[in-house]
Each structure stands twice: as C-alpha cells, then as structure tokens.
C-alpha cells in the first residue's frame, strides 16, 4: 500500500492536465444541454491516450486517473469506456464505444462504432450500421442516442460479460468522481461570489456543512474508484459503482440547491456535470443492481437468495 504517485503516474497525470487545460472553460455563448468535445477527442486520439491501459508501465490505474481528470471538463467525450473497457474486450473493436442498456437510449450511442448491448446478465458486442443509430434529444448532458437494432450481435461468454460489467462499473465510478469534483468546484465559486444578507453564501454554516459533506462523499468515491481500477476485483468494482451512484444522488440535489435558480439556467455550467451524474445514476441497473453485486461479491450471498429478490428478476438472465 503506497499512495504516492510513481514517476510514470505523475508524468501521465501532468500530461493529461496539460492537455485538459485548454478545455477547462465552456464557451461563453454555449447554452445547450450537452457540450460535445470533438477537439478534445482528437487530442486524446492523437496523443494515444485511449491506449493508456495497455501500456505496461501505466495500466488500468493510470487510465482511471486520466478518466477521473478528464471528467472534470465541461466537454462530454467518449473516453471512459475506450480507456477502461475496450482493453478488456475479446478481439479488436473500434472506438467510440457506447452501452445500450436494456434497450434504452445511451450516452454516445449515435456516434458509436462499437456497442455493448446489455440484456440482463448477458452482454453482446455490435458494430452498428450508421443507419441503425439516431440521436435523441435529452436533458442529460451527454450526446444521447438510440440503437434501432439490426446488426449481428457477438455474444460474450458469461465470464467475459462479468469482466466487462466489472470494468463498466470502474469506468462509471471514475467518471462520477471527476464530475463531482468539478460540480463541487463550480458550487464553491458561486458560494464565494454570491452575497445575500450582507455576506457570501459560503459563510453560512447551513450551506458550508452540506458542501463539506459533498466533499467527503466525492473523496470517498475517488478512493474506491482508483482502488477498483488497481485491484480489478469484482467486489471492489461493485462497491465503487454503488458508492458513486449513492453519493451522486445526494450531491446532485445539494449542489443545485447551492446555486438556486442560477443552477437551473443553461448559461451556468453546473448542469454539464450534474446532468452527466444523473445519466450515470441509472446505468448498470442503478444502485439496486450494484447492491446485489456487493452482496454477491462482498457478503458471499448465495445466488439463490439474490435470484429470489423480486426487483432483481428482470435484470437477471434466466437460469
């Protein structure tokens, strides 16, 4: 156990931060729901950042650190699945990646070249035809899209699917960590500048304590996400994803309360992080499904007990 960054890890974080610096601020005239980061995507691709996990000196933990840093940006780009899940897929699959979870619209689906089609415990891979994909208007601050079906599905084995699901959980936790840190920073700015009753809002204890609790939650999400990326343990991944979704539920509400009506506008960037967190809340079956995974992996609860859970039934493959 040693939490100091190695020279390689430090260099990687420094390089990611340097690249990210030019994308820190949203364009002042942007008033949309999602801010696509095509230039960011190109920079990451040119710099071969999507292959970080495959570099022996760097590995999955560095990829997780990169995802966590990039998620702090206002721009929405598909890097999380490319960096953390794609290396786990059997064979070569082109990026961008997107998950289609039980037929629902998903993040980055409209531009994806590989789809992870999730049906209960089963996962299949698809190289979709462009004509089978369509964008969907959404409040979620990601480019959302729908797959109309059609292309041939390559099913993953049970073990391959479990592995992919594990890394989807790690990716979700890493992204939630970055999003929450950026959202908290945005709220801190507002609470520092906005004055009411003759003093900054951030000087009122009622708000300070809620912000401090958000900071504690965000820090916990970060530690669990990085740990899961390093150990690749399915229990760690389930804990990280559960804590991320649990904490995000609380943080999104509290952070919007901090900004009042300002946070309801598209002018203010807060929603670019909070509505991405909201999109992540329902993924992989939401908190309930992560809880079942924690029970299975950490408490050793028997599958018979878990299959008897009524709300789990639709998410689980027939035995």
């Amino acid at each position, binding site marked *: 156990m040693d939490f100091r960054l190695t020279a390689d890890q430090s260099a990687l974080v420094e390089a990611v931060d340097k690249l990210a610096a030019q994308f820190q601020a949203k364009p002042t005239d942007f008033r949309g729901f999602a801010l696509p980061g095509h230039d960011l995507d190109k920079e990451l691709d040119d710099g071969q950042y999507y292959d970080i996990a495959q570099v022996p000196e760097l590995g999955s933990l560095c990829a997780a650190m990169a995802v966590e840093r990039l998620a702090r940006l206002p721009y929405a780009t598909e890097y999380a699945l490319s960096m953390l899940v794609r290396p786990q897929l059997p064979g070569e699959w082109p990026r961008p990646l997107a998950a289609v979870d039980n037929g629902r619209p998903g993040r980055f689906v409209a531009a994806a070249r590989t789809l992870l089609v999730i049906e209960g415990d089963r996962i299949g891979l698809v190289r979709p035809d462009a004509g089978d994909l369509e964008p969907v208007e959404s409040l979620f601050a990601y480019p959302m899209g729908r797959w109309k079906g059609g292309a041939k599905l390559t099913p993953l084995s049970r073990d391959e699917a479990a592995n992919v699901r594990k890394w989807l959980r790690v990716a979700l936790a890493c992204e939630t960590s970055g999003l929450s840190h950026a959202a908290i920073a945005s709220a801190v700015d507002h609470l520092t500048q906005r004055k009411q009753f003759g003093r900054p809002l951030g000087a009122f204890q009622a708000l300070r304590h809620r912000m401090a609790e958000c*900071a*504690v939650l965000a820090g916990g999400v970060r530690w*669990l996400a990085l740990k899961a990326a390093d150990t690749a343990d399915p229990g760690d991944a389930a804990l990280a994803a559960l804590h991320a979704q649990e904490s995000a539920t609380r943080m999104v509400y509290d952070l919007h309360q901090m900004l009042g009506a300002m946070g309801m506008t598209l002018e203010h960037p807060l929603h670019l992080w909070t509505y991405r967190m909201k999109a992540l809340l329902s993924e992989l079956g939401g908190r309930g499904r992560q809880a079942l995974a924690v029970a299975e992996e950490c408490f050793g609860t028997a599958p018979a007990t878990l299959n008897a859970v*009524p709300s789990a039934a639709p998410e689980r493959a027939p035995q």
Partner: protein
Amino acid sequence: MHFAWDPEQQSFRSTVRAFLAAHLPSDWESLAHGPASEAQSAFSKRFCGQLAQAGLLVPHWPTRWGGRGAGAWTAFILAEEMWEAGEPRGGQYMNVNWIGPTLMRYGSEEQQARYIPPMARGETIWCQGFSEPEAGSDLASLRTRAEKHGSSYRISGQKIWTSYAQHAATCFLLARTAPGRDGISVFLVPMDTPGIIVREIPSLIGEGDIHEVFWDDVEVPGNALLGAEGQAWEIARAALSLERVGIPRFALATRMLHRAVSMLERAGRFGYGAIEQAARARAACEAARFYSYSIVDQREHGIPTGPEASAARFATVMAERAVHEFVVEHVPEALSGGEAMLLAHHQRAIVAGIASGAAEIQLNLIATDLLKLPREPR
C-alpha cells in the same frame, strides 16, 4: 500508487492476528461489553502487558522508548486489528496513539522518564481532561483554573465526559493559567492527588465509560506543567491530529455488518431492503477505510496531514452510522440481550460523531480549509 499490501505489512498483520487468537479468552466478546468496565479494565491491563512483552504494544515508538521505530502503517494495522477485535487494549489505546507521542514531543526529560516507560510496558491508564460543562466544542472557553502559588499550581474547576477516569492513574489536563485561548496550559496530574473527585455518569455507551471530575483546590508541583504556560492549544492540536485518524472504527463496523448479514441469511431474512442497505453500509465502510489509509500514508512518508484528515474522520462517522442503523433496523434483537458484540459495537458507534470532538467541527474545517469557502463571521 498501488493498493496491494506489501509482504512486510501482511506479515505484521498476521502476527497481530495470531497474537489475538492466542491471547483473547473464549468469553472475550461478552467481556468487551463496556470498554471501561471493571472487568475489561482488569483484563486490558494484563493484555497490554503481554502485548508489550511481544513487542506489539508500541512498535511505532522510537527504540529509546521501547518501540522499534516502525512506521505509521504498522501503527495503523495494529490499531485496525485491535479495534476490529473489540479493542482489548481498553483505554490504553490513547497512550499508544497520542499521549505517549505527545509527551515525547513536548515533555521534559523528567516527565518522559516518569510517564513513558510505564506506558510502553502496558501498565498504566490515562484520562483526558478536556471538556467542561460550559466548554465542549468551544474548548477555548474552558474555565478550570490553575493558579500559581510559589513553585506549585492550585487547580479548581470541573471536567466532564471524561473516559476511563475511574481507572486512570494520570490525567492529561487542560486548565487556564491566563485569559484567552493562549492562556490555556497542559498539566500531567496523578489522579490520586488530594482534591480530585470522580463520579461516573450512567450512559448509553457502556459501564464505567464517562465521568465528571471535580477539581477542588488540587495542588500540583510546577513540574506537572507540560511545555510552557499557554502552550496547550498548540499541544492539543498536535495531539488531536493524531487522534483524528486514530481509531479505525470502520474495521469493527465492517466486521459487525458481516456478522449481522450472516445472521439474517441464516434466518432467511436477507431480503431486498436489507441487501440494499447492507451494501450501502459496506461501501461507506470501504470509503472510510481508504480515506483513512490516505492519511496514514501521508504520515508514513512524513507529509503533513491537512484537512483531508477531517474528511477521513467524517467518512468514518458516516460509516459507523450506516452500520449501526442497519443493525437497529434489521437485527434489533442485538440491543435486547441477543448478541454481545453487536451491542458493544452499537454502544461505541453512537459516539463516533461526538467523541474526540463533534463531527460538525470537522465539517467546519473541511469547508474552510479544504473547499476554501469564506469563513463564518465570529
């Protein structure tokens, strides 16, 4: 950065576990009910002596003081294993964690020679005279006075919520020698000094745990003063920084959560509501664990700990809350004579946000020092 235990760390943990397996009696769990009870205090004194002989009481202390200069990870692995087992060291964990190290830093040679060796041998219990009826979170407003009379001091006042006072040989006492925050001093006072009266306060948290201590013109020699007059704030801050991530509460909380889940599974009562709540509590424990580890790692490498230590403490408070609320809702029989260790955990868990200072003070520190929010007006 890596999250795997080093072989040396694993080996030390195995050594501590083997020691516990060999030295905890079969009825230990019923004994653990009430960390300051007569029965546990007597057991703890024997147990700490055995720990010391095995080199496992103060391994992180310098060799000069009976340790072997092991690092912060060793100290914390030891603390984790002890707390997870129900803290068989009783009140002596305070000696190990912060009273000994504080005396090493601020004590005179005479004070060090007098007080540290008995701690290293596991022979003595201390108590902490901080809180007063009118000075809890606002510690700087404390009123207990220490007035100089020639070469000695006379101490008058009242302390409250004092753990282990009944069995303590010495008190680490804060008293006022002058007005203001910089007028508070630390005194090391033998508890058998005439004029000290200890009364137990019956409480939810176990037999013999908290007390009020009355100081009626207690005369102590000048050499009872630790450091200089008025240095208490600095000394207390240094001591509390060791205590903030001192008790690995998440360790026992995790163990008790697993025990409660096993009980429910055996009874066929681990249904969906319980599963979801248990999983959330398990995640909260794990978050607290790694938050705390991050502080330990800073200590190991000589990096000054900042406001993240307050965040680690608050994460631990949330984990304790999640577990004890799970037990109350799903294994309520634990609080009605059903399971000694679950009951003991509950009694310790409910003070997690209060003992060592209210958790809300930590939130203030996080808001100001970590988030850099504007300060509240005073």
